């Protein structure tokens, strides 16, 4: 298509393998992450497929229970640690944060590259664990099963997660320092895009929570290897302590997954309504509130684990508090569309889906924060449905929406919009068909992690598996047209959406240095119409 030589950008600035594997450019590192994360997404999806197929019938006929246990464990480990946690921050965050704040790069480009290598190393250990027979502890690694009873590759997988944790820590560290120290002149905190706020909050969780899971997994590994009595009661340990330490990270970790998606959706709603966000400060601070309060609620995973009644009450009430900033966000996104100029481009379809599905995911979370209700629902499919509404309906919808929104910026090419709309619809329908029945079968009492189940649960499992098939197809379509678009789609231009933001003022794909010189920011984000004060901020 091009007749003249294209201008120098980060993609054509060096074509050797070394120019990619040794790059310090945050945009190239983002693409390295994109490739590896996509790989892990489809790997995790493959495990999910086997899980769903096995659950088509009540008996364990496709997979032996032991193999089934390994499959759901690998699905959890791969999706949580190798897809959901790094997905938006390491790909979109890495690519966009320096551009959005008018910087040439992250504060520590070499550490950024290092974090990708650490991620890959952790991934290799985990893949090795899978190839050598998998792990059968569940992604939660509950002691003493993980430390003493399981005879699967707990050590390898634990080491993999331990290593990957450091990749997450380094990414968070880089983002925090970058946002504090690299903002362009004039870019005050309250002019920052909400995407940056969300990533800042995410980074806080990454650096404050991840070390605790690292040491916990390390202790499990040490206990397993040397038979030290840390968590196994038979050796004098306390398994509930493991759960405290584990959830101290792993509950905030769900906010690592959802907060960046919330940041994406805030950008999408503004760009495709051509309107600044309703209640900027509330949306910005709600990200911080979620990150901070999110650290105080982990005990709601221990309501039936023999925690004290008093602790149950404390964790329950704080869990309700963390719901409020999420509600504030949902209302503000919705209000932003009011009197906007709403386009129905494919990224916005994902945003619509996100708002609806995240609402369901969040509201069903209230069931689990409610002490008396959680007892019955704990460890049933209700929980599976709830967190998939947040993780898939939330995090993955945000990720896909963001990918479609920024794909023209990243690659310089558009994608076929018709196919994109079809895929978005496909994912939405498939997703709901997969996970809505699980709410019902969960309330009926079907426990999670069951290879075999009572026959009266079958109808819901059949629906679920059917939905998962549709969902899987919905994921494959974007893969195909994104790949196709790289060479064949029309050029996008600098600003295909008519959106406002620093990233849309530079060429697509951006040059290696992002900006020819440090820009001087004069306005907040997404101010389309001349300011006409209605109400107060």
């Amino acid at each position, binding site marked *: 298509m091009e007749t003249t030589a294209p201008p120098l950008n980060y993609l054509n600035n060096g074509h050797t393998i070394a120019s990619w594997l040794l790059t310090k450019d945050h945009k190239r590192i983002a693409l390295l992450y994109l490739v590896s994360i996509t790989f892990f997404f489809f790997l995790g999806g493959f495990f999910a497929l086997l899980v769903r197929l096995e659950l088509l019938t009540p008996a364990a006929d496709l997979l032996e229970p032991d193999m089934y246990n390994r499959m759901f464990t690998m699905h959890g480990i791969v999706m949580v640690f190798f897809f959901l946690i790094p997905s938006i921050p390491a790909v979109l965050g890495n690519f966009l944060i320096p551009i959005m704040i008018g910087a040439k790069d992250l504060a520590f480009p070499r550490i950024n590259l290092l974090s990708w290598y650490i991620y890959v190393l952790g991934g290799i250990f985990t893949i090795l664990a899978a190839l050598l027979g998998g792990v059968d502890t569940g992604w939660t690694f509950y002691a003493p099963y993980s430390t003493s009873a399981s005879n699967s590759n707990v050590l390898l997988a634990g080491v993999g997660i331990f290593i990957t944790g450091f990749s997450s820590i380094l990414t968070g560290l880089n983002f925090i320092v970058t946002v*504090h120290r690299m903002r362009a002149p004039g870019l005050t905190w309250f002019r920052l895009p909400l995407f940056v706020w969300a990533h800042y909050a995410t980074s806080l969780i990454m650096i404050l929570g991840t070390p605790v899971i690292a040491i916990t997994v390390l202790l499990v590994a040490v206990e397993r290897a040397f038979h030290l009595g840390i968590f196994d009661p038979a050796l004098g340990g306390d398994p509930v302590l493991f759960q405290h330490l584990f959830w*101290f990270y792993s509950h905030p970790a769900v906010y690592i997954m959802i907060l960046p998606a919330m940041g994406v959706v805030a950008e999408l709603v503004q760009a495709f309504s051509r309107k600044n966000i309703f209640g900027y400060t509330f949306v910005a601070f709600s990200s911080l509130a979620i990150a901070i309060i999110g*650290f105080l609620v982990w*005990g709601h995973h*221990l309501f039936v684990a*023999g*925690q*004290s009644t*008093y*602790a149950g009450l404390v964790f329950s009430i704080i869990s309700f508090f963390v719901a409020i900033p999420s509600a504030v966000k949902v209302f503000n996104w919705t209000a932003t569309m009011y009197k906007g100029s709403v386009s129905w481009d494919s990224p916005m379809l994902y945003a619509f889906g996100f708002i609806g599905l995240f609402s369901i995911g969040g509201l069903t979370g209230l069931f689990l924060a409610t002490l008396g209700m959680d007892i019955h629902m704990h460890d049933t499919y209700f929980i599976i449905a709830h967190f998939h509404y947040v993780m898939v309906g939330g995090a993955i919808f945000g990720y896909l929406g963001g990918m479609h929104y920024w794909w023209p910026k990243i690659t310089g090419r558009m994608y076929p919009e018709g196919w994109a709309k079809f895929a978005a619809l496909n994912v939405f329908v498939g997703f709901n068909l997969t996970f809505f029945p699980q709410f019902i079968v969960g309330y009926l009492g079907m426990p999670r992690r069951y290879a075999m189940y009572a026959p009266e649960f079958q109808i819901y499992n059949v629906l679920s598996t059917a939905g998962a098939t549709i969902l899987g197809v919905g994921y494959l379509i974007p893969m195909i047209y994104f790949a196709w678009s790289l060479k064949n789609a029309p050029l996008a231009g600098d600003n295909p959406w008519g959106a406002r933001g620093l990233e849309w003022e530079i060429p697509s794909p951006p040059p290696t240095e992002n900006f020819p010189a440090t820009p001087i920011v004069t306005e907040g984000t997404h101010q389309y119409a001349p300011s006409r004060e209605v109400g107060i901020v």
Partner: protein
Amino acid sequence: MSGHVAPKSMYYGVFGALMVGTALTVAAAFVDMGALNNVVMLAIAITKALLVILFFMHVRWSTRLTWVVAASGFFWLLILFGLTMQDYLTRGWVDGTWR
């Protein structure tokens, strides 16, 4: 650029205080004060840590951001300790419960 340069005498002073603290804590350990032993021990340790942070690590002369970052680490540690211990310490408070 150059940050705050403290006189050498200050470093020697802090060093002396740290050494005295170490001697005190060892001496106190041999005196039976019941539960107070722990309090004294930890009070001395916290004081020593604060001296190192404030003077050797230059937080005394650093930006407010550094103060916040340094404090947040210990604050989050307290969250971990506090919320975990409020479970252990209140087991059996309500009649007929788990324990």
